[in-house]
């Protein structure tokens, strides 16, 4: 009986010690500002390369993140009856002194990403040229052919983990970016 009690007490004290250890070091310094939500794409840049090689870029950005000021989009002006090469860039510009290029990440994880397009007015949707390792479309490099002059809109959607095998892959996955531009074709 005495032996058992001693054993019992010993294990109790061992446990006390263990939980005292696990308990220490939890008090947090309150003054460190929290990091912003890290999953951040603030900027979409569309680079249109004309047949002659001249590049014009248009930007959609929301540098203060979700909430606060609404996003700002530049109006796109394109020439009629022209085939442009359209390259898309994604950036994190939340910290002006440390701008991050997210495009590389999207390309590296091409199987998990898909860029979808929607167009209205005189515009047709661009044709996707690039593919991921499985041969499924990605959408960072595309070709856009304009027709007659007029107005329209072009919407870029970046999907995360879409089901590329689905009948309509653009209806699947999680939307990371949805940027709508007004377009004038002259």
């Amino acid at each position, binding site marked *: 009986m005495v032996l058992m*009690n001693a054993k019992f007490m010993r294990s109790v004290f061992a446990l006390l010690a263990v939980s005292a250890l696990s308990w220490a070091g939890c008090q947090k310094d309150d003054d460190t500002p929290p990091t912003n*939500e890290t999953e*951040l794409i603030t900027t979409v840049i569309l680079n249109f390369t004309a047949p002659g090689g001249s590049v014009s870029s248009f930007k959609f950005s929301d540098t203060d993140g979700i*909430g606060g000021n*609404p*996003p700002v989009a530049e109006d796109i002006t394109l020439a009629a009856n022209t085939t442009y090469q359209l390259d898309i860039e994604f950036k994190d510009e939340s910290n002006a002194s440390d701008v991050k290029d997210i495009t590389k990440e999207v390309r590296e994880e091409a199987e998990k990403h898909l860029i979808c397009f929607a167009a209205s007015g005189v515009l047709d949707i661009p044709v996707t040229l690039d593919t991921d390792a499985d041969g499924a479309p990605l959408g960072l490099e595309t070709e856009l052919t304009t027709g007659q002059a007029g107005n329209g809109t072009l919407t870029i959607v970046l999907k995360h983990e879409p089901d590329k095998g689905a009948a309509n892959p653009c209806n699947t996955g*999680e939307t990371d970016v949805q*940027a709508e531009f007004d377009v004038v074709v002259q």
Partner: protein
Amino acid sequence: MKKGLLLKWQWFLVLALSGQVLQAQSRCDITLKGKVVDAHTQEPVAFANVAIQGSNIGAMADENGVYAIDSICEGVYIIVCSHVNCDHAEHQVVLTEDTQKDFVLEQHGIFIEEVVVKGKAELLKATGAGGTLDASRLGSERGLSLGDAIEKLPGVTVLNTGSTIAKPVIQGLHSNRVLLLNNGVRQEGQQWGNEHAPEIDPFLADKATVIKGAGSVRYGADAIGGVILVEPRPLREKQGIGGELNLQGLSNGRTGLVSGMLEGRLSDKIPVSGRIQGTAKRGGNLQTPNYYLDNTGVEELNFSWALGMKKENWNTELFFSRFYTRLGIFSGAHIGNLTDLMNAIGRERPLQDGAFSYELGRPQQRIYHELFKWKGALETGEKGTLQLQLARQFNRRQEYDAHRPYGNLPDNFDEPQIEFEITTHTAELSWEHNPIRRLRGTIGAHFMQQANTTDRGALIPNYENYTAGAFWIERWKNYPSPLEVEAGLRYDYQWMDVGIQGQDTINRQLDFSNLSGTVGAIYRFPKLVELRFNIGTAWRAPNVNELFSDGVHHGAASFETGDPNMRPERAYNNSLTIELDDKDKLNATLNFFYNVIDDFIFLEPQPQPVLTIRGAFPAFRYAQSDARLMGLDWQLAYELMPALQVESQASLLNAWNRSRKEYLSLMPPAQFEHALRYSFGEGEKGKNAPYLRLAMINVLEQTRVPEGTDYAPPPPGHTRFKLEGGAQFRLSGQPLEVSLAVFNLFNTSYRQYLNRFRYFADETGRNVSVHLRVPFGKEGVKK
């Protein structure tokens, strides 16, 4: 002397009455006798009253604690023993022959309001509505979650986020409106979120008590919905070592669970008791009748210890518990914006069909909670008992989105998007005075200091919160008078210092203060009927998320904004409970409630969506309105035949926004459960006999919803079945307890209105649970 005379007078009456009423009985010459002793000293308690409840038959013990009641007829009786310095104690006896029954009375109840009668403790009954579940009634649902286990009480439902997160709802209210006490300490985590489940090991709970409504002055002002008390097993009172081992397996998710407890007490000379307890659980992807739910596994690892010492006039206790869980959030529920949400709702079944896997991917939650407390009680002479409790809690919540953060290559799976840490210190001082004439009461004070750090994300700010409160409760009781009255008053003051939120500095100080109060009464008719009535008022200061929320609520695809000028809520609660108990075949409780809440805080949809780089998000703003919640809960058990019992219970609620003249959203629909319980063989009133129970759970469609504020209409009603059974036996001397439960017996496909993932997937399908409990120890263990 005076008492003796009174008793003699009663005696005559008794004889006269018993002769008439109990004429039909065959035998009326039984003598019940015994001794009344003190629980600690084993000394006889002189001049205690022993009486048969519901009659005037009784006797007073002599100076040696010996009593005798004779000429009792055969039957089942509740014998009540009472003494001026103790609370009364009840014991059920079956009288067929002369019987000896000893009573052990706990003088000046060292545990608050608790009396020990050999193996049975009786709490002073609350005047409001509520109920208690012991370990056996918490049942197989403990293997699911604490929320699921206490949903068995009428009026209690759950708010789910998928199938891995369950949060208790009392009569339509939850989160910060429901106070959870874990072993006497206010649980302080991030309760404000709908997807934040209580951080308590369900196997630590030996008993769970729910107090409905705003009547609980004792525990804090903000509990306008009610209080849930989760209590571990009391420390061992007998010398020796004991414990139990629980093994549980659940088919859905192929979940396995092991929980063990070891307890001991040194000796009567050195009255030191200790207990260690731990639970480990692992489950994989859950399954609906038609498909797997991708990424719905869970891992849990909890442990606790307690150490206590109990002397004649003082006692002290240390308690530590640690809770850790990692749980997967159904991946089909993760969406980017409103378009994604509408696409998901439009789908017949989720995209990710999934297969079985134990692997936990993103999105997931990791939650850590620890509690360390010290409690001491000291008898202050003849006057009463002084109690002090100090506690520290630490809670860390990490939420991982479907996506690991951009811009942080290479693989950094371990980086959450949201991380909150909250540390809370509480102190509670109370003094329970011994009866002064017919009054018993407690006066106390409560202090709390709390600091929240948002390490990642900017949904809520950093803040510090200081609370001080004082309460006074008195109860008038003059046994055996049928009336019992209780009244209580409480004052609270809260000061809050709000600091940084994301990149912004808020730097605001807020303070709130007000009174809460309650008046209640119990009236016991001589037979069958007991009435309980309670009126209470309480208030709740707006919570930090209601004041300062600013951001996208992931999974809900909504942009939520707080309002820093929010006023506190004020609730007025009326509750009437009718209890019918014939001590034999019938037991029924009926509870009507009518609650008015002024300045009720809720999320109001805004006409203009918020435009972001991720697309449009519907905007919600925290708003205030006057609300009214009324309803009816019932619970009924009736013995049809000696072995067959029929049970029924219901939770009905009507929640109305008085200002906007519309229903409140996200309120539980009407829910019924009807069951048949069959016992094989005898046991103490069939309690320990093997049994089978078949329950039909019927949930109606929620039709009381505000128009045009939801993405999809509430799901249709459904009926599902549950089969339970259990048996106790001995295997070569070793007692064993086996319970079996089949949830969703017929594998019904259904969705629940109060599940936030009802847009995306069905509820889980059939789930077979087998639970083995092995008690061990020096002597028979479980009382």
